[in-house]
């Protein structure tokens, strides 16, 4: 049974398989790409593997579920990726097994073990957005994305940790626990979807859902060495996603392979009558992109125009990140891409514009947490006190800071200088991206200026933390799709730290991103980004 879920990862064989050649960090990033089978076989889709092995009778959903649960039990004490683990995992797996044994059809995600970020509503299961104000809150409905996953046979294994309401880049702003990076337990997994990224990296689940408002899927994917996919705004229904900044929020997907992220995206995408900002665009079948390596031509990406964003390799970016990105560009060139540098003049304006817009919208979106109808209410002897105490005790520091900033930005007399101005910048950024994407099929950049940093390192320096979002926020402002996939390692931790490459596509062209990403991943020498042993787990 174990064999069905590997490679790339041995499921219950602990410790983790060490990353191949952990000492040769530089050599990985600089190794010239080759289409020859490398010493490590390229990563394989866990969704496809699961489907094959279930349908062939090689294993059962129950066995798979059990092995994941035991893996979670073993690794959770160190990692703390989950705020809640479902009690129904085995029951749901058994139902799938029964269907299979009765010869009935099962959905395309049957038996797939899925983590769901805690700001995405799951019926009857705690959904708190990692906030005290929603502690013990259980929604009466599933988010549309979750509903679709369940309809396709996916098993929601639990709710993953995050920065409270998505506000943060380290997952340290969770009201409940700090998640560790599986590559180095003293480092942050990134955020805000840190739990979802770390859980996939540590193989606590096969794939997971996150949400991305300013990079909250892509940056943790980079920090944890997994694939993170931020779809076009409107591609996935936001119904059931607890709003942070409505005009920027999207539900995104994590997987250990591009194929898995793509298939999960396909499952959750599409128009939803409960979200009037969801798009009626057709959802292409991303699965067909996940070709095996045998079918690649010598230059499988011949003619694909790639723009390397000049501004993302300037000052403030770690040299290791810069060289990994340049190596990735060379790899793409070797695959047949035409790589040129492009400039986005408005690039540096994105960060302040993003923080104004996101804070403004969040100050409004979080008004509903008033302690009146649900969540934690603090008793008080008059109404303003009730609001003050419920919100004062329910929200964490980062959330309060953003609510205050947003309230200020929307106030009479300041609206034009902040909110309106930021919207104008947003238009400018959209235009610049459009121009760059008129001449290129995709744009590339690092996913973050550095690899994962230490827990606590930026906790008292919010501006330094905000600055880390510079690579990703522009994409949200423009509403474009982007994928982050591991492209190299830099020095740090017991065996190096992963670095992610960000690929940005035209609106609703996730297809190109997945195609290029898949071929990139399958041909990267020494691919297979598996974190090192977790200490104390034997």
């Amino acid at each position, binding site marked *: 049974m174990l064999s069905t879920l590997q490679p790339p990862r041995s499921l219950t064989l602990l410790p983790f398989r060490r990353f191949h050649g952990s000492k040769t960090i530089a050599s990985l990033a600089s190794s010239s790409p080759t289409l020859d089978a490398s010493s490590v076989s390229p990563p394989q889709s866990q969704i496809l593997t699961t489907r094959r092995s279930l349908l062939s009778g090689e294993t059962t959903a129950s066995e798979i579920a059990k092995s994941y649960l035991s893996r979670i039990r073993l690794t959770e004490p160190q990692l703390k990726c989950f705020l809640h683990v479902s009690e129904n995992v085995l029951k749901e797996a058994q139902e799938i097994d029964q269907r299979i044994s009765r010869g009935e059809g099962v959905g395309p995600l049957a038996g797939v073990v899925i983590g769901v970020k805690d700001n*995405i*509503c799951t019926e*009857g299961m705690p*959904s708190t*957005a990692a906030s005290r104000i*929603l502690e*013990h*809150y*259980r*929604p*009466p*409905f599933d*988010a549309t994305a979750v509903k679709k996953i369940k309809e396709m046979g996916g098993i929601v294994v639990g709710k993953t940790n995050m920065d409270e309401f998505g506000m943060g880049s380290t997952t340290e702003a969770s009201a409940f626990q700090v998640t560790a990076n599986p590559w180095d337990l003293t480092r942050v997994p990134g955020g805000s979807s840190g739990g979802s990224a770390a859980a996939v990296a540590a193989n606590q689940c096969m794939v997971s859902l996150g949400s991305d408002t300013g990079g909250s899927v892509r940056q943790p994917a980079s920090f944890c060495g997994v694939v993170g996919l931020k779809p076009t705004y409107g591609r996935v229904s*936001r*119904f*059931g*996603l*607890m*709003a942070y*900044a*409505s*005009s920027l929020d999207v539900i995104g997907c994590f997987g250990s392979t591009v194929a898995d992220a793509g298939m999960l995206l396909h499952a959750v995408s599409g128009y939803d*009558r*409960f*979200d*009037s*900002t969801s798009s009626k665009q057709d959802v292409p079948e991303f699965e067909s992109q996940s070709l095996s390596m045998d079918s690649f031509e010598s230059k499988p990406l011949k003619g694909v125009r790639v723009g390397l964003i000049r501004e993302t390799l300037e000052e403030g970016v770690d040299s290791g990140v810069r060289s990994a990105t340049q190596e990735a560009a060379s790899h793409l060139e070797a695959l047949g891409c035409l790589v040129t540098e492009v400039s986005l003049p408005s690039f540096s304006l994105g960060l302040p514009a993003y923080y104004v817009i996101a804070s*403004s*919208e969040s*100050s*409004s979106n*979080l*008004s*509903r*947490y*008033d302690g*009146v*109808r*649900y969540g934690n*209410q603090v*008793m*008080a*002897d*008059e*109404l*303003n006190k*009730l*609001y003050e105490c419920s919100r004062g005790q329910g929200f964490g520091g980062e959330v309060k800071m953003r609510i205050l900033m947003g*309230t200020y930005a*929307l*106030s*009479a007399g300041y*609206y034009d200088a902040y*909110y309106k101005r930021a919207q104008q910048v947003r238009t400018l950024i959209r235009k610049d991206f459009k121009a760059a994407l008129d001449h290129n099929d995709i744009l590339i950049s690092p996913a973050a200026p550095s690899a994962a940093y230490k827990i606590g390192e930026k906790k008292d320096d919010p501006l330094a933390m905000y600055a880390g979002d510079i690579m990703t926020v522009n994409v949200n402002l423009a509403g474009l799709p982007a994928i982050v996939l591991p492209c190299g390692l830099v020095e740090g931790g017991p065996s190096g730290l992963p670095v992610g490459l960000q690929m940005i596509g035209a609106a609703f062209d996730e297809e190109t991103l997945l195609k290029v990403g898949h071929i990139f991943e399958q041909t990267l020498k020494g691919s297979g980004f598996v974190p090192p042993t977790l200490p104390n787990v034997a």
Partner: protein
Amino acid sequence: MSTTLFRTIQPNHFTLLTTALLRTRTKTSRHISVRCQTSTTTQQPRTSAPKNHGSNKLDEILKDYEAVIGIETHVQLSTSTKAFCSCPNSYGSHPNTSICPVCMGLPGALPVLSSKVVDFGVRLGLALNCSLSLKSKFDRKQYFYPDLPKGYQISQFDVPIASGGYVDVDIPLEFGGGHRRFGITRVHMEEDAGKLLHSDAGDYSQAMIVSKLDLVDLNRAGVPLLEIVSEPDMRSGVEAAEYGSEMQRIVRYLGVSNGNMQEGSLRCDVNISIRPIGQPEFGTKVEIKNLNAFSAMSRAIDYEITRQALLYNQGQADKIVTETRLWDEGAQKTVTMRKKEGLADYRYFPEPDLPEVILTQEYVDSIRASLPELPEAKRRRYEAMGLGIQDVLFLANDVSVAEYFDEVIGKGADVKSAANWLMSDIAAYLKNEELSISDILFELLAKGGTVQGMIKEKDLITDPVEIEKMIMKVISESPKQLEQYRSGKTKLQGFFAGQVMKMSKGKANPALLNKILLEKLNAKE
């Protein structure tokens, strides 16, 4: 000082709100509240009793001032669902039975606009001679209050769906007659808030509401509204009341609302200031709320004009402050509800959960083509037929009467005799029987026969004994509701009436039913 404790409900699941949400626990709290009220009422000017003055002297004083009146009208639309979710839009249901994650503002829920709301907005905009915005949008108006689940109201701020119109009215002869045109500033779409059910009606100061609020009913939260803002074109209570009546007629003619003031389907807030005649600047604006009949509106405005004029006259114009006052029907005067401290900052910004509202010219044209003949057009047509203005006003006042009259003359009846017959015999008869013309006459028109025969045929139960029997049965079967009613939830009368109607298969005489029901409900055991 003993405290008032709000009891927490912990609906970690979707079980909500048939129980108390915020509840006063101790009797002492009421004393606190009363003290608050005393402190606000003492701030009221002592001169607010116009009746102390001789009417001649008063007329002398009033002669020197001009009132400037503008009206904000909220019309609750008779759509089958709420504006942004599919909850039924029904008045008088049991509290918190018509709610869902969207109108409760649960985390993750999103609004989706009902196209019917736009449809009604366009209809009303056209009927009020407005220009329509082919591209309008929604905004969030933000403030905290327990009846506002999301912490913001979805409304339209800088781009309303319709703006720049007017309405024509005829002032009834008994008030001097004449034709007036009042400007319409704008019409915009928004959602209603829920309702706080107070333990004790009559306390209105802000502090009071806070310390006494008991329950939140969200049935009304998310019900679609159109807000109509007039230009400050009215000068008297009569003009304002006539403006309000015309709004009611128009929404009823259009079928966009039942226009019922008692149920709150049509709510008028009046802004009023006065100035010495000849002064170009406006005086200090006072808002009056809680006007649930046009006659009350007229009286409230006249009271307020007098109050302000006296203050001016006594050199106390500085005592006229920007505030919201309530019309106290019992005392026949306006009282301070809350002072406005500076302008409220609602931090409006575009609602990111809803796309822009785009109208095509074809759509607007098709709605224009489907508009019925409106009251003003009817009045002018009846006038042109040679009817006197009093006949005209009577006939055009009720859309059912007007339609019936049109059918009658359409069949060749003499205009004058048909009008007389309708206004005297039929109107009186229906009034006696407590029926509206639409209950009877359309069927009569279709089937023929007599009015009396039709009432018999409808088989209305008019026997008080029989109705009482049904009422007692319903009351005995609903002890819980009875207890709630007797502890102050008088709105439950509708529930009981509904149950009796159901039992009688709709045949109980409604007037009789309500009369007996009230007696029984209010009977002391």
